[in-house]
């Protein structure tokens, strides 16, 4: 167990050594390592964590966002996008948080991990944060007549939006038929 905590600390130390003051903050509580990174450096940080052989964070286990509107303590920005990475060979995890405002556009992590495709679609649907370079940034959970971003703190949680008729999935199907050369 002591070794694992050391690996997390090695990760944070390596990040700070390489990226200097673009790592805004780090903390590690009982092996739960977190680094807050400036949004200009996020792609470089994720790529470094993935490709560096000492660290080898090959798996993006989750990508989500947090809305800090009305938070009691002042935060750097309204939203923070959170990446959870896991290293299969080293068996350790790290959390990367990026403060962004509602109008900021982050580069998409789909370049590094294909799983970020749906995860970033969920962030767009629930929070309204855009990702540049995403192959298909459209809503994934709410229905097609839904207006607004449901998990933002200023969306009233009980505002229900009934649906009149379902959209067909033909737009997705058309793309696949074309890709397979069947249309």
């Amino acid at each position, binding site marked *: 167990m002591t070794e694992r905590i050391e690996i997390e600390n090695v990760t944070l130390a390596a990040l700070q050594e390489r990226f200097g003051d673009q790592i805004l903050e780090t903390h590690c509580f009982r092996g739960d390592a977190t680094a807050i990174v400036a949004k200009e450096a996020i792609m470089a940080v994720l790529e470094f964590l993935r490709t560096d052989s000492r660290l080898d964070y090959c798996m993006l286990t989750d990508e989500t966002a947090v809305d800090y509107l009305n938070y009691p303590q002042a935060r750097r920005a309204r939203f923070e996008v959170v990446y959870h990475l896991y290293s299969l060979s080293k068996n350790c995890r790290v959390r990367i948080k990026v403060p962004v405002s509602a109008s900021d556009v982050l580069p998409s992590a789909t370049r590094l991990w294909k799983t970020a495709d749906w995860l970033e679609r969920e962030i767009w649907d629930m929070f309204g944060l855009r990702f540049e370079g995403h192959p298909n940034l459209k809503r994934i959970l709410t*229905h097609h007549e839904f207006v607004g971003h*449901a998990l933002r703190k200023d969306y009233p949680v*009980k505002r*229900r939006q*009934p649906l*009149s008729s379902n959209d067909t999935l033909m737009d997705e199907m058309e793309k696949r038929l074309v890709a397979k050369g069947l249309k």
Partner: protein
Amino acid sequence: MGLESFFGDSFFTTRIDAIINWGRMNSLFPMPYATACCGIEVMGMLSSVYDIARFGAEAVRFSPRQSDLLIVAGTVNYKQGVILKQFYEQMPEPKYVIAMGVCASSGGFYDNYCVVQGIDEIIPVDIYVGGCPPRPEAVLDAVIKIQEQRIKKQTVLEPTAAGTKIHLP
């Protein structure tokens, strides 16, 4: 009257209402519309320990066009509600609906932006079964209530001014 004594043991007389309702109530074809956790309890009710086959509702048809009892088991979102309405419209008359569990009856503990607060916003419901999830016995009780209070009391013969009309929906 004199019929039974005339034919002996080969025939019995009854009313059209009674015989048709008897046939319908003891051969319900359930359609388990299981969207969430209550679906597991539906599976429990359909299988051996809590056996719904005792009540004749053995033939589970996973098609609305072939079933007459719709058991909505689980949370229904607005996206799913459109599909639920299509399901209900595809069922032939006479049809009955059980809202199983609190999510189907009232939205459950999901008082939020996406859950329909009770499927009676979308389709008419005969029996609401509370519970999260309800015991399989509770849903069996609902089936029995539909048999006794809905089907058994349905009138097939309709008295009209022109005479009695058989109304077979």
